[in-house]
């Protein structure tokens, strides 16, 4: 009986050996860990270029205590070809190890390629079994080759630095949402929706650009990467850009949550309001057969950054709240009108009509005709540490 069982177990084990497993075995020191991928297409020649930024494991503190400070933390490889596959395979002319793309932290596409359309890149990427779509997709504002050859301080790799910055900008500046991954771009484009992706540029370069120099310099604002506004994408194609102010307004209207600071008119001057978005609700209404999209935004206000004025009474607080609400509503309405005038449906009115009124005869026309109403409700929730501002004459007005 034991022998029968043993034979059965051996048979199962042999069958298991046929499965894709031990044939996939690969040691860590046979892999090149791809940290960031850059993609470009020359509009004239039509040639594709791929950049692969590879992590140099020896650059950090290694187990053997080898000081790796003099080595570059990442190596950038570049390969071109008539097709993406051709460029991809050319990497092995340069690379001694197998590319391992699972841990890539960012994908960059050049602006010129994005304006022509990113479908080729995304399809090629999605066809690879080891590609991940849960990584940020960024548009390169500068020549992508420069960006791919730029170091960033503190974080080990530029891609980690970018991914980390996007999160911080989403939480503390409301300039980006956390939904700027490759998969978000695919989902939005497939639904004919709009998406705003981060634009990345390189800051002015000075001195020697090797990693040691870059890491040794105190001026961390130079020779590094900069998040430089947003690229408006529709149907896998970049159609325009948003500046940093517009990015905040866009994310307020799309209901993103996060903090931001805004200078708003109050009484005869301005005050600096520290605000926190609590989300937005959209409601579709009809007025004489015309669609009306009502946005209702909720904001928390804090006087923590308000050096100009400090409310003392309930009436003053209500006055301040109303002023902030009014100012924001005005700015949001202006932004909505501006983008609609360009034909950008960043407010996703078409998507709302598709969902709420699926049987509309002319949805495109209805979306263009739709009236947008924006209401902002602001509540003071934070006062900072002072009960009243210090007086005196020193300081700027």
């Amino acid at each position, binding site marked *: 009986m034991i022998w029968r069982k043993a034979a059965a177990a051996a048979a199962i084990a042999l069958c298991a050996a046929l499965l894709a*497993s031990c044939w996939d075995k690969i040691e*860590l020191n046979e892999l090149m860990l791809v940290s960031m991928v850059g993609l470009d297409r020359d509009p004239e020649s039509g040639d594709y270029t791929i950049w692969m930024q590879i992590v140099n*494991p020896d650059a950090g503190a*290694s187990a*053997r205590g080898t000081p790796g400070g003099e080595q570059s933390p990442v190596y950038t490889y570049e390969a071109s070809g008539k097709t993406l596959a051709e460029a991809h395979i050319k990497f092995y002319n340069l690379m001694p190890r197998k590319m391992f793309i*699972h*841990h890539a932290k960012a994908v960059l596409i050049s602006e010129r390629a994005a304006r022509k359309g990113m479908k080729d890149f995304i399809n090629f990427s999605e066809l690879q079994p080891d590609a991940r779509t849960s990584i940020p997709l960024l548009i390169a504002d500068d020549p992508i080759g420069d960006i791919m050859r730029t170091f960033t301080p503190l974080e080990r790799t530029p891609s980690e630095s970018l991914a980390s910055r996007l999160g911080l900008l989403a939480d503390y500046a409301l300039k980006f949402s956390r939904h700027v991954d490759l998969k978000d771009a695919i989902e939005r484009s497939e639904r004919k929706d709009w998406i705003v992706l981060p634009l990345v540029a390189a800051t002015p370069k000075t001195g020697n650009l090797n990693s040691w120099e870059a890491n040794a310099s105190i001026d961390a604002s130079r020779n590094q990467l900069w998040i430089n506004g947003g690229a408006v994408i529709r149907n896998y194609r970049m159609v325009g850009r948003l500046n940093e102010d517009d990015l905040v307004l866009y994310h307020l209207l799309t209901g993103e949550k996060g903090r931001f600071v805004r200078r708003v008119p109050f009484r005869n001057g301005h005050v600096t309001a520290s605000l926190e978005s609590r989300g937005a609700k959209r409601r579709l209404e009809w007025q004489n057969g015309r669609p009306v999209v009502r946005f209702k935004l909720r904001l928390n206000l804090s006087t923590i950054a308000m050096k100009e004025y400090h409310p003392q009474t309930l009436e003053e607080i209500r006055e301040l709240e109303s002023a902030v609400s009014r100012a924001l509503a005005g700015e949001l309405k202006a932004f909505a009108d501006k983008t609609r005038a360009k034909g950008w449906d960043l407010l996703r009115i078409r998507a709302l009509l598709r969902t709420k009124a699926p049987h509309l005869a002319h949805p495109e026309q209805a979306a263009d005709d739709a009236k947008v109403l924006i209401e902002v409700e602001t509540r003071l929730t934070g006062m900072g540490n002072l009960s009243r501002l210090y007086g005196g004459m020193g300081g700027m007005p």
Partner: protein
Amino acid sequence: MESNTHDRPIGAALAEDIQAMLGSPPDLICRSLTTEENRSIQLIYLDSLVNRQAVDEFIVESVRRNAFAEGPAASGSRYARELALAEPYATVRDEAARAAASGQCVLIDDGRKRVCMIDAYDAPGRAIEEPMSEPTIRGSHEGFTENIRVNIGLIRKRILNPALRFEEMRIGSRSGTNVMIAWMDGLAPEALLQEIRRRLSAIRTDSVLESSYLEEFIQDRILSPFPTILNTERPDKTAALLLEGKVAILTDGTPYVLIAPLTFFDLFCSSEDYFQRADIATFIRWLRFISFFVAVFAPSLFVAATTFHQELIPTELLISLSAQREGVPLPAFLEVMLMEIVFEIIREAGLRMPRAVGQALSIVGAIVLGQAAVEAGLISAAVVIVVAVTGITNFVVPVYSFGMSQRLLRFTFILLAGLLGLFGILCGTLMLIAHLVSLKSFGVPYMTPMAPAEAADWPDVLARAPRPWNDPNRLPASVRFLKRKQPGG
């Protein structure tokens, strides 16, 4: 030998024959005594096994004063038995020789035609010491000894109850080892007792020198890495388990007492759990559960993740591991396997070595493994950490034999991980679960109270429930299971 009986008094002849049967050992004492009535009495005993003071003060004096009461032939307690010389000579001789060899005084009374065997056993042995394999911080520091009578006393002093029962058996055709079954009458299920008696009676062996001999014969499944009988050298633990209705088997010559039935979750319980506050004991018990998983799965998961599933490793960790592997000549699988084997060798050597050398060995082991191998680039630091953590977690389990099981399982899983990655580990885990749920200990499913589910017992298995919350009359699920099976249960 029987020819001697024709021309000499039977007592002297018998004494000579017993002496010859025992091979005239140097510790054999043959004394001729004369009573007040001028009767000649032969006294034979092994000096190394008897209490000399008891022989001189009690037996010799009683004989001289003729104070030995005449009892019925072949009767008496275990303490003193008598045989009539009228019985077949060979029977009397063999019985007397066996009695002398087992530490009894053989008293041959020619006048009364009797052979009396008096228990004066007092073999040399160590004193009661702290258990080597199950020390505790709080609680009793007494451990069983190699003397079964001392061990019985250690149990009795904890359970002052007439319902505590002991039943003696002799096992081993040559060693004639004294084995005792201990249980609490009324608590231990009759079915369990019958089964233990049946299995012990069925043992056919020439010797039992340790309780593990018995364990191998009476365990439910031979081909299993898991123990189905608990062994302990703690009298307090034995007493506690007897009071839960379990049955103990004491073996003369070893401090390890066997206790049945055993379930998987009993292996995570230590005596100290019940000497600590409930919350602390619960925390420590969960540490043991975690340690079990680490001890069994950590190296295999490391091998699987680093050679098959690098995408599962967080990027920062992967870069760090990758840096460590630069220049290491061996594949991760061999690296881990080699280190585990070296670790096991060092551990085994540490057990056998004299204590003074053991310390030096551990230092050499630590330096060679932890530093030199890494610096030489033979082994990556991560592997040393994994092996060290695995080794340490292996010692967390309170039952030593279960720690051994974990070691076996660990090597199996490393092999599976090296061959098939996580798929291999998953297959192995499924087989392990199937094996565990199919195991039984004296009829009790090994995974009780999880499978079959006895939710009422979970608080005292997954945690250590405070005593006031427990029903003192409620027996554990394993014992209740057996009681339900017995007629009228």
